[in-house]
C-alpha cells in the first residue's frame, strides 16, 4: 500500500470542521443539561412517586434503554411528521439525545438516591424541613455527588454517540467530515482529524465536568 497522505486539504477545510464541532458541543451540552433535569424528575418519581408515576417512568426507561439510539432518532425525524409534528434536524437530534440521556441518567441518579441512608431523611423530617427542602438538600445533592463519576461518563458517551445524528442531516462534526471526505476523497485524512477533534472534545468535556464538580460539591467545604 503506497498511499500518499495529503493533509493540506484538511487544513483548508479546518473552519468547516470547527463549525461542525461547535454544533456537536452545543447539541451535547444542551442535551446534558436538559437530560439531567429529565433524569432527576424521573429518578425522584420512580423512587418516591405514587404507583402510576412509577409505572410510567419505568416504561419510559425500559423503552429507551432497550431500543437503538439510531431508531429513536429516525422516529423523531421521520415518523413524527406523520402525526403532524415537524421538527428540524437539529431539534429532532436534540430531542432524541435528551430523551435518550434522560433514561440512562435517571437510573444512575436513582442509584444515588437509593444510596442515601433512610435515617438521614427521617432526621430531616424530625428537624421540620419541608418536602422540597428535604429533596433538595438531603436527597438530590448528596445523591448527585455520589454518582457524579458515572453521570460524567454517561455525558461523554452521549457526546460521542451524537455522531449518528448526521443520518438525519444535522450538520455536526461527523456530517461535515462525511461531506468533506466525499467531495475531496481524502477520507483517511479527514477521519483522522475528526478522531482527534472528538478526542479533544471528550477531554474538554471531562475537564469541564470536573470543574463543575469542584464548584458544586467541593468549594468551601474543605475547611
Amino acid at each position: 500500500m503506497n498511499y500518499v497522505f495529503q493533509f493540506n486539504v484538511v487544513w483548508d477545510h479546518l473552519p468547516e470542521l470547527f463549525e461542525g464541532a461547535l454544533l456537536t458541543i452545543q447539541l451535547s451540552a444542551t442535551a446534558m443539561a436538559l437530560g439531567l433535569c429529565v433524569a432527576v424528575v424521573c429518578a425522584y418519581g420512580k423512587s418516591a412517586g405514587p404507583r402510576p408515576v412509577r409505572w410510567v417512568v419505568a416504561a419510559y426507561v425500559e423503552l429507551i434503554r432497550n431500543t437503538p439510539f439510531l431508531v429513536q432518532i429516525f422516529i423523531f425525524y421521520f415518523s413524527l411528521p406523520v402525526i403532524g409534528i415537524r421538527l428540524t434536524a437539529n431539534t429532532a437530534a436534540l430531542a432524541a439525545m435528551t430523551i435518550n440521556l434522560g433514561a440512562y441518567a435517571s437510573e444512575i441518579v436513582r442509584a444515588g438516591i437509593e444510596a442515601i441512608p433512610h435515617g438521614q431523611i427521617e432526621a430531616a423530617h424530625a428537624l421540620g424541613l419541608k418536602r422540597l427542602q428535604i429533596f433538595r438538600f438531603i436527597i438530590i445533592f448528596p445523591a448527585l455527588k455520589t454518582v457524579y463519576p458515572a453521570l460524567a461518563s454517561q455525558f461523554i458517551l452521549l457526546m460521542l454517540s451524537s455522531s449518528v445524528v448526521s443520518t438525519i442531516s444535522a450538520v455536526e462534526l461527523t456530517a461535515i467530515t462525511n461531506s468533506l471526505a466525499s467531495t475531496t476523497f481524502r477520507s483517511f485524512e479527514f477521519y483522522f482529524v475528526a478522531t482527534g477533534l472528538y478526542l479533544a472534545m471528550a477531554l474538554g468535556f471531562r475537564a469541564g465536568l470536573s470543574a463543575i464538580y469542584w464548584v458544586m460539591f467541593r468549594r468551601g467545604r474543605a475547611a
Partner: protein
Amino acid sequence: MKIALRFVAVAMLLAMPAILAAPPARAESTLDKILKEKKIRVAIDVGNPPFGILDKDGQPDGSDVAVARQMAKDMGVELEFVQVPSTGRIPALLAGRADVTIASISVTSDRAKTVMYCNPNGALQIVIFGPKSIAIKTPADLVGKRIGITRATLEEATVPKMAPQGTNIVWFDDISATIQAMLSGQVDAVAMTSFAGKTVADGNPDKQIETKLPVTTAFYGPIVRPSDFELRQWINTWLFLNNQNGTLASIYKKYTGLDLPQLPVF
C-alpha cells in the same frame, strides 16, 4: 592474489553490458496478482438501484453486478464482491480492500485526482423529483425550498452548483434516508438518478412524485487505484470488446429499460 583480482576485474568488465541490459526488477502489478491468485475483488454498492441491489434471495444483482460477473468470467478468474455503501466506494479501493470498484461512479475531474477511471460503461441522469403539490419549474423556483441530496453522489457534486442562492440544501448519508425525508415531508424535493426517482414514484403512487428539473447527464465507469495501469488497460480492452458485441447495451437495457447511449472513450 594479484592475478585473482585481475581476473575478477576482467570478469566484471565483461559482464557489464549484460548487467546494464537486464530489465529492471518490476513490482508485481495488481493485474499480475489477480491472474496469479485467480481471483478479482470488485467493490459494489448494492443500495443503489438499478445498478446494484440485492435480489429476493439476498444475492447481489443490478447492472454493475452483471458487468462485474461478465468481466470476471471473461478474465477467467473467480469473482469476490466487496459490498460497500456509496460513501465507501472510493475508500475501499484506496485501502486495498478491492482491486476495482464497479459502482456507477460518474466521471468527475475531482474524483480523478485520487482514483483512475476506466472508460465509461453506462450513463445516468440526475433529476430533481418532488410531490405534485410542490411547484418547481425552473431553477429559480428552488429558492426557499428544502432539497434533499445524498453524500458522495453526483448530486452532491452538481446540485449545489446549479441551485440559486437561497436554496436550502439538506445532506443525508444514504439514498434511502433522502427518499424517506421526501416521503415524510422533511424536504420539499430530492435530487437523485432518474432510475431511482422512477422506482420511488412507482412505489408510492399516493404521493404523486414527478420529475421537476433535469440537473445533469453523466457517464460512469469502473475505477482502479492510481498507477494500476495494466489493470486499467485490460478493463478498457474488455469494455471496448463488449461495447462492440452489444453485451454492455443488453445489460443496460435489462436493468434500466433504456437504450445505452453511445459511450465516449478517453
